[in-house]
């Protein structure tokens, strides 16, 4: 295996790990779609998919084959470059942020010292994809959806970023590896305890950022029938869905990393060393399950109520809690 040693050198190491992460992101989306349908099934007194493979587990595979073989239809008057570029503009940022998340001790593709800034900057590009999709499709419904999506995603970035600051202040670093290391030693050291209001604000904002119920106004299937993605079909639609679901997984992963200790085990004696990615996986899956639970239980807010909640409740709350955090850090 001597000849494979070049893989440990840059840029090959980065290219290889980026490939692996991209592959995992796409798979994650497929698995999440499957999980979502199963969770929805059990919440709604039915079984969910159970025909393809054992207990329906091969359903994502069948879905992917179906989506690949479907014709890709674009509206006659669509702005084709923008229309086709939108799914890519939505998917790439989501895949890119996975690069800075530590899965296990030492297992991180790029240990940036500004990883949190990277996360904030790159996820905000996702709003661009939504605007592109809505504008490029040239349809009233998708335009409304895109405007809603843009307003919502940009507004909720403010509480999202503000709620990160508490963690940054406590850690004194913007590196996600440092954030995780600072939470070692048991679940009582995880930031969701000392930063509980921020954890809630971050959770709500990440629901809004990923356009999940109760903040799924850009899709709003009962009034604007799918919103910005209404004109997409086949693989372009699949890519948008993959971006949505991978974005949901990403937000769950970031929540885990920042507030639930990342790969840190809940109790010190449960430390599995390199296999601590199991803890990361369990916590992320739990957060994703709560996303789905909310999705299938709650109705949707209206645009003005959404803005009220973001600007009049969440932002002041985070500002107050930042002052409290700063004061507490001065005292202790």
């Amino acid at each position, binding site marked *: 295996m001597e000849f494979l040693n070049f893989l440990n050198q840059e840029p090959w190491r980065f290219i290889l790990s980026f490939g692996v992460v991209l592959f995992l992101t796409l798979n994650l989306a497929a698995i999440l779609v499957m999980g979502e349908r199963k969770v*929805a099934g059990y*919440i709604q*007194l039915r079984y969910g998919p159970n025909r393809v493979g054992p207990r329906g587990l091969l359903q994502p595979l069948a879905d992917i084959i179906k989506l690949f073989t479907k014709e890709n239809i674009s509206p006659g008057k669509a702005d084709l470059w923008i229309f086709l570029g939108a799914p890519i503009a939505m998917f790439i940022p989501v895949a890119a942020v996975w690069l800075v998340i530590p899965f296990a001790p030492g297992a991180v593709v790029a240990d940036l010292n500004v990883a949190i800034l990277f996360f904030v900057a790159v996820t905000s590009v996702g709003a661009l994809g939504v605007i592109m999709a809505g504008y490029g499709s040239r349809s009233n419904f998708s335009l*409304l959806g895109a405007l*809603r999506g843009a307003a919502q995603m940009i507004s909720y970035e403010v509480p999202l970023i503000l709620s990160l600051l508490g963690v940054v202040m406590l850690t004194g670093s913007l590196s996600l590896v440092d954030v995780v290391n600072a939470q070692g030693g048991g679940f009582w050291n995880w930031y969701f305890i000392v930063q509980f209001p921020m954890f809630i604000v971050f959770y709500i904002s990440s629901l809004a950022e990923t356009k999940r*119920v*109760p903040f799924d*106004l850009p899709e709003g299937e009962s009034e604007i029938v799918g919103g910005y993605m209404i004109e997409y079909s086949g693989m372009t639609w699949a890519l948008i869905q993959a971006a949505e679901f991978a974005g949901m997984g990403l937000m769950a992963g970031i929540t885990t990393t920042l507030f639930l200790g990342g790969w840190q085990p809940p109790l010190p004696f449960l430390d599995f060393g390199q296999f601590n990615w199991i803890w990361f996986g369990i916590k992320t899956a739990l957060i994703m399950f709560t996303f789905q639970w909310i999705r299938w*239980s709650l109705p949707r*807010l209206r645009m003005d109520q959404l803005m009220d909640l973001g600007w009049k409740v969440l932002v002041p709350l985070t500002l107050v809690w930042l002052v409290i955090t700063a004061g507490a850090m001065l005292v202790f």
Partner: protein
Amino acid sequence: MLSEERRNETVALDGTASERLARPDIRSEFGLETMDMNMGPQHPAMHGLLRLILELDGETVMRCDPVMGYLHRSQEKIAENRMYPAVVPMTDRLDYFANIHNEHGYVLAVEDLLDAELPPRAEYIRVLMSELMRLASHIPSIGFLMLELGAFTPILYAFRERERIQNFLEAITGARMMFHYFRIGGVKADLPPGILEEISEYLDGLEGRFQTDTVDLVTGSEIYVARTKGVGRMTPEQALDIGVTGPPLRGTGVDFDIRRDYPYSVYNELDFNVVTDDAGDVAASYRVRIGEVWQSIRIIRQVIEKMPEGPVMADLGRRLRPKEGDGFGRVESPRGEYAVHVVSDGSDSAYRVHYRDPSFCSMQLLQEVVPGHYLPDIMPIMGMIDPVSGGWDK
């Protein structure tokens, strides 16, 4: 989560949002234009085939014109060309979510022409069927309202109940949807043995399930309250002018129910309350529907208790040839007042049949009430009147 002041703000009447956005001077100063939007007829939330022509200013609806006719089947004309008994199965196709009431209205109108006297058991069976149908229509309509607000799950819980009620209706009538059970002069067949005990047993279970699975889940939900309180608000005068009947009318505080005010069948022998509410918005009509579910359960229990023995069909002769004149029948369907006017010219088919369908009349409400609301508020307002495509298009 949301401030009390915000929740109480009536979007439609004080119109802060719409006034701000829709002021012509602001629009002309900035060169703003409104957007025309076509909602439907192929739209998942349009309760069938309805097209709304909307004029939008941002998210605010400035004009809302419903366009009907996509499911028109000339029901009234067909009814002129069929013999009287043969029209009953056609009425099933009107409001296909509450067919029994359609049959009941038509049958009442023809019996009014014939001055028919019905055996008491037939009347009690009719009331039993009507109230079962009302349950099977009200419970899903609460689910539809939630579906339109974006919550997908309640509709499936609601349809579980409708499914079980439909099993009873199937056992009694032999059909799942197009029953053709009411006949001029009675009902098709007697109840199958043991069905009353089964219904009674089911109602015991329903009372618990309805409270926990629907009422408790929905009523207290913060988002539900924010989305429905103050939305679609109308005054009693407005509602009466438009001709709204049923739960939306009673939600404005008007105490009007055909079952009590113009009793038909044996409703005057039964004890029940007419549920009203003062708010006049979507939340009020929801509360009225919840209340009516409890009242229907109460009525069915009384019917089961009082069910007399005897024949279920009056002998009106082989061929129905009513004298010349008018026949009129009105019933309280789950959506409001369903009335049938039959004009006879002495032959064996009607000269003219007219159906007054609550879905059709309440639909005017969209034009009056929706402007000034936000686009997503159209859906709960549709859920408030809960129209059925087959009803408004006939």
